[in-house]
């Protein structure tokens, strides 16, 4: 389906990437990156509308990837949903400070994340339409 929304999953843990992939692969076009570097490389090629981003990764971490997306005008309409096992209050704050649009802590509720992804993409599409 050519009209499917594009989502990039960024997680160094294959298991977590697999869970997200299984939840979303039927309704969205997916790309998976296992490191921050890989994500930034994939970004201009894949042009995702939403990035599901892990935080703790070797090399460039999730915060940095988020900042790079959010400070680049080319990705002004790209949404970022952080999906991390980091669940301390200050860790969430750091995520939002880096520019994340939403934050899910692992373990997360499957239905909740699917619904959130859908709503984030819908609102994104609306904004796009208004422009």
């Amino acid at each position: 389906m050519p009209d499917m929304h594009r989502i990039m999953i960024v997680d160094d843990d294959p298991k977590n990437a697999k869970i997200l992939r299984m939840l979303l692969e039927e309704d969205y076009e997916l790309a998976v990156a296992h490191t921050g570097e890989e994500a930034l490389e994939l970004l201009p090629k894949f042009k995702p509308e939403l990035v599901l981003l892990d935080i703790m990764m070797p090399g460039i971490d999730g915060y940095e990837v988020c900042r790079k997306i959010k400070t680049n005008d080319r990705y002004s309409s790209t949404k970022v949903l952080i999906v991390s096992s980091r669940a301390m209050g200050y860790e969430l704050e750091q995520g939002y400070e880096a520019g994340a649009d939403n934050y899910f802590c692992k373990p997360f509720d499957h239905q909740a994340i699917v619904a959130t992804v859908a709503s984030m993409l819908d609102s994104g599409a609306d904004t796009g339409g208004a422009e």
Partner: protein
Amino acid sequence: MKYKSDELAKGYKDETMFLKIDRGQLLEPTPIIQPDQVPKKPAVAATVVAKKVKSTGMLHSEFLEGVYDAAILTDRTGKVLDCNTRASEFFLLDHDHMCRLKVTGLLAGADDTVLRAIVTNLDNDRRTVIEADCIRSDGTSFPGEITVNLVHLTEHGELSFFIRNVTRRREIVNALRESEQRFRDIAESTSDWIWEINKEGVYTFCTEKATEVLGYPVQELLGKSLFESAMADHRKEAWEIFNGYVERHQDLGQLEVWMFSVDGTLHCVSFSGCPVFNDAKKCIGYRGIASDVTDRKKKEEELDRYRHRLEELVRERTAELVGAKEEAEAANRAKSDFLANMSHELRTPMHGILSFANFGITRIDRSDKGELLDFFQEIKDSGERLLHLLDDLLDLAKLEAGKMTYEKIDLELFAVVDSAVSQFQSLITEKNLNITLDKPDFSTVCEIDQNRIIQVMSNLMSNAIKFTPEGKTIQIRCRQGSIKRGSLPQPSIEVSFYDEGVGVPEDELNQIFNKFTQSGKTHTAVGGTGLGLAICREIIVTGHGGLIWAENNPDGGVVLTTSLPLKSTVKIKAANTL
């Protein structure tokens, strides 16, 4: 009246009787004024006048008018025969009134007895000077110095009284005496002493109190330099300071000099004073007071020492507190970090278990056997990861409590390493990694706890695999090395794991072995809890007397090396032969 004027010229013995009338008594001769200080003028004047009278034949009244003093002429009983105008002025009586009186009525406390004593004195050829209060007609009085002479104007002989008003002199003398007394009282009652020195610093005057401090008698101090007894290394400085004051004619303010007393003890003496000028306004020296401030000085020094010690203590204590505070804060941070890491590490496998269980439940109808098996496999993997974490935590707890027991036997270390590495075969294949591990051509027998060393080697291998990107190489090398035990190096076997990861910043290399500490750069890759390397270090260092360290590989990545003591076969043989 006729007088034998030649009698006036009669010479006196060069001897004067000084008398004082006090409360109606003629006191024993008292040298109120030293004989050599007596102004001899009246006597001399009288002699001169007498001579003049004799030579010119002048009337006595004329000669009496010529003298400065009040002059009264009486007969031997004291009855006034004549007086000059000055006498009238002194006693506020005219000449006629005066001539009706007896001289004793004019002098307080004088009576016939006194007069007789005077006459007797005079008969013995002794000039008589009396100090007495002279009573004016209005009842007031003035102090007088009265020179009485015996003259022989008639055959009976007469008395001449030359009366000088000494009110002013008395005042001056009294003032001087009072001033002297005041000075003496002050000098005696203060613990300080009074000094006077010339421009060369030599004592010209000094009060007795100096002796109490310095021990030298005053007579010994006079003529000596004030600075002579000053402490040697202090003398020049004190002298220069003093000279500076002299040059500027400045008041000397608290010049403190450490001086030796006669018994050799040191005293700090504080000199304060002002310059002394002669009539030509030239500075001829200084005078002032000196006080022994040794006690104060010593107390000040002691206080200073205490203050310094106190400051030092405060600084030390502050540093200790700051250190303790920082330590506590660091411990607190480490605890918080550990909790955050633990939360992360628990959540990750828990997420796997819950997610794949959920997939099994929600997709049971549309999943084939293979898919369901995969879900169960994922649940099992996550469960094992959780168990591994719990094992690590238990190990750590045991290590921290010192309750870890080791069952050591002699083993080929290489075989242990090889067995640990082979456990990761599936992961190695999955990540398409190249592993190089060559069998060494030397003995690697060490006395080790097999399970614990496998745990260490597995941990290091696991780290290396996590760091190394897919398709890259992990090198494991065995080398002969040595561990320094005291002064003797002991042979050892070194096992190094070379990964091709991102490496660790130099300043974090030593910290990666601390509990709960992970390199910020490799946070997740080093096994999550930050316990792995801490456990390794405990097992290697505490458990086996070995070493473990990390260094960056110049070609990239990190090298983690363990060094375990080699079992010395030579030693065993030597022991057997004994």
